[in-house]
């Protein structure tokens, strides 16, 4: 399982890098390589050239700026996971990252890379959709910002144009007092999620749901905001009947077809359970109590 031949390029600036992409429609960006290289070793990916961006100026580092966590393109998963500031301003990020593959993969793979790879069972795309993050795309023509909900299009497909490089991703910090939770169902530790769910919510003074966001991965050809389930919980006291409605509303969001090991019915069942458990966990965190 050796990769096919390619042209190797190691640009030093972002302008050089996007120019290389523009010049060759079959070129691919190489960042961490943890998704691209397996595909090349299996020879299901056959890029004519690899544009290695690890030496490009200005693509390193994590910062928190005006309520946003800014993650540059070459930031490895593990860097973000171990960042104490990020842990403080958005612990959901760290909780989610711990489910991404295994540490050696997280040591090399990049957050932005995972977003661009757009596997519908991956955790980072879910996180961005859940939190309403954005990515910054740079092309020879200039720069644009793309919202998470506009970025993920279909299975392994984003709205990034061929000659664009995503130079950074931005995630909002968690609002003060917000509750949060993430979990996923996998068969083995570290696998892609069969079903994954993230929840962020805020409670008003009387304990009712002021805001709630739910997003799932593994249930469709891209990460999905469960808006109908959110609506079912909005303004409620999270009574069992409210959760029942939220679970019912989530069923139609599951479109991943049956296969030999999983089924639509299984995913709906598991998604429902995750909604109940993670909403409860997020609510407990919002009330500042860890669940028993």
């Amino acid at each position, binding site marked *: 399982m*050796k990769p096919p031949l390619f042209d190797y390029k190691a640009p030093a600036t972002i302008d050089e890098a996007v120019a290389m992409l523009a010049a060759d429609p079959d070129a691919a960006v190489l960042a961490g390589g943890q998704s691209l290289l*397996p595909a090349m070793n299996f020879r299901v990916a056959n890029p004519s050239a690899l544009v290695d961006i690890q030496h490009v100026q200005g693509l390193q580092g994590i910062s928190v700026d005006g309520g946003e966590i800014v993650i540059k393109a070459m930031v490895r998963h593990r860097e973000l996971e171990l960042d104490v500031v990020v842990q403080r301003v958005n612990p959901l990020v760290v909780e989610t990252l711990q489910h991404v593959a*295994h*540490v*050696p993969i997280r040591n090399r793979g990049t957050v932005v890379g995972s977003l661009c790879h757009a596997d519908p069972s991956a955790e980072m795309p879910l996180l961005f959709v859940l939190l309403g993050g954005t990515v910054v795309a740079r092309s020879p023509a200039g720069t644009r910002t793309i919202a998470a909900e506009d970025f993920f299009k279909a299975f392994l497909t984003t709205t990034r144009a061929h000659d664009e490089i995503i130079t950074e991703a931005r995630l909002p910090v968690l609002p003060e007092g917000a509750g949060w939770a993430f979990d996923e169902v996998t068969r083995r530790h570290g696998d892609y999620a069969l079903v994954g769910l993230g929840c962020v919510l805020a409670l008003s003074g009387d304990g009712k749901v002021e805001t709630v966001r739910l997003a799932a991965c593994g249930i469709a050809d891209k990460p999905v905001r469960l808006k109908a389930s959110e609506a079912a919980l909005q303004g409620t006291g999270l009574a069992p009947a409210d959760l029942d409605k939220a679970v019912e509303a989530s069923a139609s969001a599951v479109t991943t077809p049956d296969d030999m090991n999983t089924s639509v019915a299984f995913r709906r069942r598991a998604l429902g359970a995750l909604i109940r458990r993670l909403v409860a966990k997020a609510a407990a965190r919002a009330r500042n109590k860890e669940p028993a």
Partner: protein
Amino acid sequence: MRGKIKPALPERSEDPRVAVALTVNGEQVTRAVSVRMLLSDFLRHELGLTGTHVGCEHGVCGCCTVHIDGKAARSCLTLAVQANGCEVRTIESVASTDGALHPVQQAFKECHALQCGYCTPGMVMNVLSRFEEPGTLDLSEEGIRDMLSGNLCRCTGYLNIVTAVRRAAELLGRAE
């Protein structure tokens, strides 16, 4: 076969080559290799360091785990050229120069944490990198299994490897 004219056979690949310069086990190394050569193959065949093993070439089994700039990484998912300028460490650097086993290796031996030995270098490099990270180690049953997750072993069933990690922590004075 005698009397048969030897066929004219190719000697080397015509792949475009790149220069890679990196440090491997503390030694500076400069080679010209095929642009697509995987780091795993570079270490094994270009440098003759065959202790790093290849089990899957898709990043799942962990047999190929080395350290790149101090962090555990899959050498099968890294191009040699990506490691340009990096510091790479392989299993061959772990025991002392006189062959004395490192405490992690010693613990594996004491605890019968290897059978065929194929996954062992990757397992040791993974464990070593976690021990070398700053911060406290989670040495609970769950914590150790979490640490080992990502390295497949088909022989031991992991029980003795978990014991070996605990023993290594003891030998290194890291017991919680």
